[in-house]
């Protein structure tokens, strides 16, 4: 992976506030296709740092390399047109239709009309807004969430390798924000842009970032991946900023598949009750997980069920809701454990195939590692 964006000793001092460095010798490298969240308390210089990339704010000293080139030496207008820009207040142009808004940078770059309209349509599809319905409407006719999607689509319109996002979901209600975040991550899976994402919300930073850049008073406090930031905070400030519930936050970050036991007590539905009883006492567990021929989850059986009359497991199996996708977060997994009295949840893959079990103990063991 090549370095796409590199901050080298970048410093910003605002005129009239010479004693204070808004950004102080900021140095970090960002690889291609990664999201870096700039996070910190307000006034920490995160927005300043971001705006220096496309030179909306000029730096005092240091240099920023964009794809190996010194941003300061590049033509400002060209530089900005090659970097996607999405801001908190969205800033859609109210006098233009949605299609015209998205097409701004391609038009500035002089693409031909056919290519532009193709791009606009594909971007609208990408952000889940049907093109024919939205293309000719005006920003004022859209809800806040829809506008922000258009903002994101506009930022991506000219296929910039780098995107800058300044609290893009800041002005949106929590439910929609969650939704947009997930949608954005889904899009990012496909497009793999290098993204600098400014936020003041540590939860968002952890969720969105491949790397987190935690700033305080213009200085870089810690630059790490989210997992490291949560497990190994560099100092008390980071610990405080991340919050007392940082262990719980890790649950958000970790997946069920990281913690689960991969040898679940399985029994096929067509086997006899005797075999099941034998297996139960052999494994010393309270439940067996019943699967079909293809290993897909059917339910569970417990000793009480096995005491009933019948000869095949299929006749006594009890359906269960205590299952979760192995790719889900541990937070959801823990929630599932608590909401069923089974004592564990069954992890399944996309095809409903049982791949493991998850108990509180497993989670604890992982977090302590």
């Amino acid at each position: 992976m090549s370095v796409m964006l590199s901050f080298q000793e970048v410093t910003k001092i605002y005129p009239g506030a010479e004693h204070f460095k808004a950004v102080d010798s900021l140095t970090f490298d960002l690889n291609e296709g990664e999201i870096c969240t700039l996070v910190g308390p307000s006034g920490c210089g995160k927005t300043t740092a971001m705006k220096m990339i496309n030179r909306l704010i000029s730096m005092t000293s240091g240099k920023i390399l964009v794809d190996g080139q010194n941003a300061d030496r590049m033509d400002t207008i060209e530089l900005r047109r090659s970097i996607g820009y999405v801001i908190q207040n969205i800033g859609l142009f109210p006098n233009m239709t949605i299609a015209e808004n998205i097409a701004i940078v391609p038009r500035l770059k002089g693409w031909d009309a056919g290519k532009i309209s193709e791009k606009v349509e594909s971007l609208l599809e990408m952000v889940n807004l049907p093109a024919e319905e939205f293309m000719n409407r005006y920003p004022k006719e859209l809800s806040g969430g829809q506008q922000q999607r258009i903002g994101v689509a506009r930022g991506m319109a000219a296929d910039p390798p780098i995107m800058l996002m300044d609290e893009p979901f800041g002005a949106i209600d929590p439910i929609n924000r969650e939704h947009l975040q997930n949608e954005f991550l889904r899009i990012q899976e496909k497009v793999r842009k290098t993204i600098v994402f400014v936020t003041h919300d540590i939860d968002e930073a952890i969720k969105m970032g491949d790397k987190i850049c935690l700033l305080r008073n213009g200085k870089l406090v810690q630059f790490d991946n989210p997992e490291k930031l949560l497990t190994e905070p560099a100092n008390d400030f980071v610990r405080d900023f991340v919050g007392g519930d940082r262990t719980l936050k890790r649950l958000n970050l970790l997946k069920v598949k990281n913690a689960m036991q991969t040898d679940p007590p399985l029994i096929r539905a067509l086997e006899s009750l005797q075999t099941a009883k034998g297996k139960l006492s052999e494994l010393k567990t309270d439940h067996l997980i019943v699967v079909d021929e293809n290993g897909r989850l059917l339910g569970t059986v417990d000793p009480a069920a096995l005491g009933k009359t019948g000869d095949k497991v299929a006749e006594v199996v009890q359906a269960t809701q205590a299952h979760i996708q192995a790719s889900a977060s541990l937070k959801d997994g823990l929630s599932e454990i608590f909401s069923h009295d089974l004592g564990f949840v069954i992890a399944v893959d996309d095809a409903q195939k049982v791949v493991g079990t998850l108990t509180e103990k497993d989670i604890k063991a992982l977090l302590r590692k």
Partner: protein
Amino acid sequence: MEIAVCPSCQKEIPETTKFCSHCQAPILSVARKAISVWPWRDKIILFATLLVAIAFFQPWVPGSVLNEDVPLSAFRMLMSIGDLDIDFLESYNILRMALMVPLLIFLLFLLTYLRRSFQESIFLPLFLLIIVLSAFVPALVAWLGKLWGIAFGVILAVGIFAYFKNVMRTGRLGPTSHFILTLFLCFAIFLYQMDLAQSVYLKFETLHFTDTFGYWFTWLVITLLLVIIALSSLKRVEDFWLLVSAVILSLVGYRTFINPLFLSGPFAFFADNFSTVGEYTMTHIQMVAIAQVIAISTAVPIGIYITRNPTAANIVLYLTSIVITIPSIALFGFMMPILSTIDRHWDAVSGIGIGQVPAIIALALYSQLPIIRNTYIAIKNVDPSTIEAGRGMGMTRFQLLIQLQLPLAAPIIMAGVRTAVIMSIAIAAIAAYIGAGGLGLFVSEGLQMATNDSVIAGAISMSILAILADIVLQKAEDWLTPTGLKIVR
């Protein structure tokens, strides 16, 4: 209850709906009944035509010319026809003939609007009734001044009251009302015909108009026609009330508005000086228009420039505020010596020191403040996040200005232009004093010669000009406002 049938799909529909419940076609016969559901255009046309129609029957000149205390209506004129001076009548009738044009337009409008079921319409009789009543009333007023007139009025009032009560009770118009209305109409048409005939036949001094068979024949035919129309139309009580209220309204309008308007001096003045009014108006418009073109092409760029330079903004806004406080007469006077210097340099034969040039320069100067200030404020008020987004996406300053700031600022800039234009129309009146011409001449000449009519005529025409300019510019503003800004959520 009558059962209505939709004219386009022939299915039965509730009587009072405006749109067919099956095929959604508008039901004209219902829509036509209440003025409230008319389109605005038609309401305005009807109103305007009523005014014209009423004026048609009003004496054009003050009663004093004829040594009469009450204004002359067609009816009165008829009574005293022998005493009238022919010369006066001729000019008077030419004006009336001129007024026939809008009347014919109105008839045309009625015919097209009501072409699908002409006989259902109540408008023609309504229209005629109003004309006649407005002609009849001044005479009635004169009669009522006498004692027997009062008695007559009381009897009439009691009769009408009893009749209305009856109509209200039964819910429909009976044969009596048809009879009364017919009588009324006949009388109206008689007067109408008299008036027309009088204007035509009086040209031939030897011929007395009632002597001709053609006159009576025409009268009879038209009368019969209109009676039939009236009888077939007035079926419902609400139609009648509509008619009555229209008559009352028109009478009120006549007493308070039309009568003094058409009898007063300024309108007589207009009629006498028709071509001069047009000429002065054109000069006035020309002056203001040139000044505005200059003002817009200087003030908008200045307004844009000062948004980028706060120091300049302070100075410019301060200066323009000072300019606007200079009394216009002083500014014109101030302009003269400066421009005369240029004249001397150029050895000009007809100099620019007085006349339209200083007037236009002064108007352009006055217009700077509203336009510069509105441009400045409008561009300053464009949402900064929009601008930031534009900058961040790599728009140049010029692109930001053309694609974003100016379209968003356009409505407010246009509002400034509107203010400037209205102001200029008023200030241009003063320019008449430095020989620039325009409608101000009526005022200045009127003041010098103590002719109030002239002053009022000038003032009225400038007001009308200002109102018209405002309407036109409002349309322009609407047209310039980007569609995306007009949306209200």
